[in-house]
């Protein structure tokens, strides 16, 4: 763990060497989701609601998933750009070090400029929470926290799966974008607006539904039946990372260097 923080610190310092570039990029990162959010806002201005969901409810949904996405892009960037490690043959160096590959790849890259994106979603989150009539309790606050954490874990899991594929394909796969970018795009609306099969796939296979649809129902007080069950879904969703971890270990054992 202390090694991880060392990686974090070193890479932070190195990125801070280019201070202007860092701030410009952060500002840019702020505006990308901002334009998406503006689009969402304008749609609500025109239509008023989406299948019975109000603007601020969807905004909360949006904020949670974007926050999770930006955090995972910041901290799991190493897996996202893993293919370059393979192509250059740098992964050989990782293998000879007496530390776990997971930790080293995770620590190989951080993208701190995602702070802009994080800030944007944080503002939306606060704005949405201020305008929603929620009766707060410790349980609900905890649920919100779990939603974001579990979202980060799921995104990280997808990055890991995509990175593992690189062991066989060498090149990075664009298809993984469907589940990261596409998943984020999709999960910014409550899942029940989609067709059944989409909602099912993204609840049981890639559990975005457990991050921001089911617990959202609990926070907004829309649940029917056992509340505790809804509250615990983010925890169940975060289990997604376990099989990803196993697949990663399996992939590492089948690694063949490109030799370059």
């Amino acid at each position, binding site marked *: 763990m202390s090694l991880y923080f060392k990686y974090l610190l070193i890479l932070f310092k190195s990125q801070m060497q280019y201070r202007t570039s860092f701030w410009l990029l952060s500002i840019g990162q702020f505006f*990308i989701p901002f334009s998406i959010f503006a*689009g969402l806002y304008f*749609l609500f201005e025109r239509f*008023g609601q*989406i299948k019975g969901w109000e603007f601020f409810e969807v905004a909360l949904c949006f904020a949670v998933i974007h926050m999770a996405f930006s955090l995972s892009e910041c901290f799991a960037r190493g897996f996202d750009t893993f293919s370059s490690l393979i192509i250059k043959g740098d992964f050989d160096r990782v293998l000879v070090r007496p530390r776990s590959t997971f930790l080293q790849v995770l620590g190989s890259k951080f993208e701190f400029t995602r702070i802009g994106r994080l800030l944007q979603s944080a503002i939306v989150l606060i704005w949405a929470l201020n305008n929603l009539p929620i009766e707060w309790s410790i349980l609900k606050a905890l649920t919100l926290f779990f939603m974001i954490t579990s979202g980060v874990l799921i995104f990280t899991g997808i990055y890991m799966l995509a990175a593992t594929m690189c062991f066989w394909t060498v090149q990075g796969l*664009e*298809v993984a974008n*469907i589940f990261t970018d596409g998943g984020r795009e999709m999960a910014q609306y409550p899942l029940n*607006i*989609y067709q059944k099969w989409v909602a099912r796939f993204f609840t049981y296979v890639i559990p975005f539904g457990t991050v921001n649809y089911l617990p959202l129902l609990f926070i907004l007080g829309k649940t029917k039946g056992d509340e505790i069950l809804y509250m615990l879904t983010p925890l169940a969703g975060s289990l997604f990372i376990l099989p990803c971890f196993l697949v990663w270990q399996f992939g590492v054992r089948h690694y063949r260097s490109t030799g370059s």
Partner: protein
Amino acid sequence: MKVYASVLKLRLLIGMQYRSAALAGVATQFFWGFISIMVFEAFYEFTAVTPPISLKELITYIWLQQAFLAFIMLWFRDNELFDLITSGNIAYELCRPTDLYGFWFAKLLAQRLSSALLRCYPILLVAFFLPKPYNMTLPPNVITFILFVITLLLGLLLLVAISMFLYISVFVTLSPMGSLLIFGVLGEFFAGLIIPIPLMPLWLQKIAYVLPFRWTADFPFRVYSGHIAQSDAIIGVFIQLGYLLGLLWLGKLALNSVLKRVVVQGG
């Protein structure tokens, strides 16, 4: 002119090599298309007022957008050109006996064309045969279709002319990221990529209509679905031409002025 044509052809052939990458792109775009259609479907389902664009027109709009994504996205970029500028290899380019603007224009045009050619057929083909309501529909008549093709091609030229400014700005800033983000975010928003222009609030539509971005993609797509009447479409073609000539002239001017001051730092 012959030089530019051969650059175009060569680059087109290179671009066509990346078939598997294109296939992955197609899958992503399909997913994207489905998601946005479902979102709009949900919005339309319980709406009290009649929206300014029908769901059917909107679905066609979205599939066209996905099929011709390479004609809209401003961040679809050529890193090679950025590297040339920042690393100083631009010196080689300047030695060539061709005009740099035309040379790059042909190169960028070919990239977008090849990418779109590879991707649009599978997307359009499948989109036509999808079950209702997700399928794409044919344009109302032949003339509309011809107008669509003309406006689409003009839109493509216009987009390349806009994207040239991106490369020109790198001469000044030396880092492509800043201008990429600004161009990308604003340009895509005002080209109707995030929400279609007819669904924007009126004040925003007014801004969008003034800017050149919507003429690249939003305009031809709406011509296709018949949302823009034929007579308006013909006027639009002239506006497109006007923008195109204006931007080409400005771009050439800007490129020449930055080239006068360009510093090649060894390397």
